[in-house]
């Protein structure tokens, strides 16, 4: 699971109001090369939640060099974009858990696949 995916996932248990961002407990992290595409990164930047992205990057140990807030200039800077690219698309959580910040409910990540299925009493 990439941080791109983490950025879109939310705890959807009935009644939960603050199910985002999910905290990450990492057991196994892998890195895989992905094609660097500045235009894609710029368009994705508008879509993602930056604060949640930083939470994920901290947990996966790839937050170094990522600023609290991003300026227009940085979005044109290859140095910044490379770091953003690496954390967003190349660092993958293989084994671990995603944890709902409100309820503490754990969603396991096994072989890189998060299991977001709810039990009957949670729907």
């Amino acid at each position, binding site marked *: 699971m990439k941080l791109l*995916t983490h950025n*879109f996932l939310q705890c959807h248990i009935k009644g939960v109001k603050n199910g*985002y961002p999910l905290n990450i407990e990492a057991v196994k992290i892998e890195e*895989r090369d992905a094609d660097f*595409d500045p235009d894609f990164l710029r368009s994705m*930047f*508008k879509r993602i939640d930056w604060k949640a992205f930083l939470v994920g990057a901290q947990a996966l140990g790839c937050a170094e060099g990522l600023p609290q*807030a*991003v300026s227009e200039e940085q979005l044109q800077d290859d140095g910044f974009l490379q770091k953003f690219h690496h954390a967003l698309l190349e660092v993958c959580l293989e084994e671990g858990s995603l944890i709902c910040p409100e309820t503490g409910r754990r969603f396991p990540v096994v072989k890189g696949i998060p299991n*977001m299925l709810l039990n009957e009493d949670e729907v």
Partner: protein
Amino acid sequence: MSSVVLPEAEIRNTNWSSDVYAPSDDSFALVDAVKEYLLQLHSKCLLQQLPRICLEVGCGSGYVICSAALAIQCLEQQQQQQRLVQASSPQPPAAAAAGCGGGCQFFATDINPAALQAAAQTLASHQVHGVQLVQTDLVASLIPRLAGAIDLLLFNPPYVPTPDEEVQRQGIAQAWAGGVDGRRVTDRLLAQLPDLLSPQGHAFIVTVSENRPQEIISILEAQGFVASIALSRAADEESLHILHVHRPAAAAAAAVAGASGSGNTTEAAAVLDTATG
């Protein structure tokens, strides 16, 4: 423009078990309809409209999402080559310099863990990397965050008419049991479609005649979509109809024009200003 043959997943490299829906006529029809759409983009020189976010709901063996990824990545390479050719000409056109980027990101969900394991193997054996698999019910947990971002949505639902209680059964029945009119699961996704698709998004949905595809088209039109049957095909004991759904061209254009300059950038810039000011 040169003609192009789009690749698709190979059956011998597609993985499934008794617990996973095997690629069948419906899967092949869906892939054919998507490839035809992609070829249209190519022949009309509209490769800049290639999807950036693609989601398959209920991916089973992974045959469809793998085929979509192979085909889209093939066209992205073509687009890249075209840009290189344009860039090497004496006066590169501004459009080429501006670039429009490749690199579609792929997501696929399934409720069945065995299907996701099979899909992971299918993708790996085709050297398709980076497709993000999520075990969930349709698009639960990805919505609301992925709302309005999906440029290409693929859905081969359980469409076989059955008694409603069959829909809830565990196991492989979940891959085909569609309840009354075979519409129980399809209708759940249709209700969410306005939230899912990006302004320029397209969806391809598998139906059979018993699902009453014309009625589905009416529902989609009432939601403001343009919907049509992209491909019809007679298969064993069923007539397949692949629905193609998108927003009216004017709405897509307006949304694209309105989107520029919004979002994180201005927000983040404002934060920066406060921090430094």
